[in-house]
């Protein structure tokens, strides 16, 4: 089921790891840790994160469970960067840490992106906070000496500040306040049209369900390979609870152990959380 089976093995159990740095990037917060117990992780993998103190008190007893967060950067020696988009009590508390505070960490978990085959030119597509694993993948491809394209879509210029951290990203915004005015799909079409017809591509995408569904439909219509990193609420992150399932062509599968990266061809449609 998983695109790759050579996944890194996480230490069994949860560990306390201090926060090294905290930085705001537009509306996002980037926090970094050095987790010497961690193996070298693959882009698209994630960690289950909680804070050691004051987890649960901000908003009436929540957050209670740890939160799944992909890393945006890793140096292979235990340094991980996590980019946070605050949408509720868990991400708010995580974004509120100070240098020296301990995070409680389980991971890296999940399958991560597969290495795109040498014949295909990888096009990385990130929407909003979905840029995090995509940028981690960009670094991984750079390190592997691969060429690739990155398309990042944001709501507005403030969110798009993230893109200015990295060279050569094609940026689009919903409101046109920076980059091209439009969607990542518009940009993808422009990019593909600009490539030589013989150039085959593979899409690697992470973002909101609507965007991923558009990428899936596009890939399916064009007959392209596409890896989609899904986001769905998780309780455990390691296959224990069966809470994170997503519908696939072969039934409900756990996004935490069989994903979060799925081949677009495995899915009939991208599941959006919330009541059906």
């Amino acid at each position: 089921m998983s695109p790759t089976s050579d996944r890194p093995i996480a230490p069994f159990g949860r560990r306390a790891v201090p926060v090294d740095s905290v930085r705001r990037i537009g509306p996002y917060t980037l926090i970094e840790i050095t987790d010497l117990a961690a193996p070298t992780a693959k882009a698209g993998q994630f960690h289950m994160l909680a804070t050691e103190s004051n987890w649960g008190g901000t908003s009436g007893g929540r957050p209670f469970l740890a939160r799944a967060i992909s890393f945006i950067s890793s140096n292979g020696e235990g340094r991980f960067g996590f980019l946070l988009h605050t949408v509720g009590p868990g991400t708010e508390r995580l974004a509120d840490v100070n240098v020296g505070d301990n995070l409680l960490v389980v991971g890296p978990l999940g399958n991560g992106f597969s290495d795109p085959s040498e014949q295909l030119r990888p096009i990385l597509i990130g929407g909003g906070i979905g840029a995090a694993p995509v940028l981690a993948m960009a670094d991984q491809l750079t390190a592997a000496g691969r060429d690739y394209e990155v398309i990042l879509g944001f709501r507005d210029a403030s969110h798009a500040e993230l893109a200015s951290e990295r060279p050569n990203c094609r940026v689009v915004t919903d409101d046109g306040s920076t980059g091209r005015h439009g969607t990542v799909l518009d940009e993808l079409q422009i990019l593909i049209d600009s490539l030589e017809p013989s150039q085959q591509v593979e899409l690697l995408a992470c973002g909101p369900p609507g965007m991923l569904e558009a990428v899936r439909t596009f890939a399916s219509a064009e007959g392209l390979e596409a890896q989609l990193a899904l986001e769905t609420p998780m309780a455990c992150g390691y296959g224990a609870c069966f809470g994170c399932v997503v519908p696939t062509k072969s039934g409900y599968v756990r996004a935490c152990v069989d994903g979060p990266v799925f081949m677009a061809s495995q899915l009939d449609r991208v599941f959006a959380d919330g009541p059906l």
Partner: protein
Amino acid sequence: MTGNPVRFCGLQLEHRIINASGTFDPIAASRAFGNDVITSLPFSAFVSKTVTVEPRQGNPPPRLWELPSGMMNSIGLPNKGLVRWVEEDLPILSRMKIPLIANVMGFERDQFSTLVEALGGKAEISALELNVSCPNVETGTIIGSDPFECGQLVSAMRLLTDSPLIVKITPNASDPAAVAISAEAAGADAISLINTVRGLALDPVSRRPWLGGRTGGISGPAIRAASLAQVDAVCSQVKIPVIAMGGVSSGKDAADLIDCGATLVAVGTENFRDPMAAERIRTELESISLVP
């Protein structure tokens, strides 16, 4: 003292902490944490997720909802079904160094019989846990909340196997102790409680039930005090051993349940927050001197 072995239903267990059904999957965990997990679980016995006769997909997502100091799930008992579980999972689970307890549920008496007959005799399985949180399809009563129904079921299963039979009762009952008494009288070897507490959550946006299964089961610290009351009530009414669970997240919580009479304590939701929670809980428990 609690670090010492404990006898339970003829088994010699290394300590008192096991897992709660459906809250740890050693096969999935070995994919995340490596194959050693299978042989180094922090539990003294392993309880499987509920196995049913037919394969089940489980409930549609979303399946999770977070609560103040707890969570709610509507997983819906997804599993491979009896045949594939025996063929595919049992060989892997039998590599564990600890006894395996198979948790089973039927939607009618015959299904329970099929499960008990198929698994009761297996050498790899040390005991059966009957999950009786299902409704009797004929009467509509939830078997686990009705003493009579529960007794009937256990009597019937008792005839089918010599394996220890653990009956896992539901907290959503007027008188859980009455159900436990009835199960004991019908030949149960142990009682396990509590299963999750029925709850509901609405989507803040659509204002409709959030969970794919509409209602869900509450677990975690939010149900701890309710669990302790029910465990206390059951332990004071039955002589057979009790596996207690519900919101255990520390050695103190485990000690409370043991002081109320439990023989074993199962860790559920806390496994999600820390895959090795059971090890910490056991260590903390060992430092607490229990009421003699």
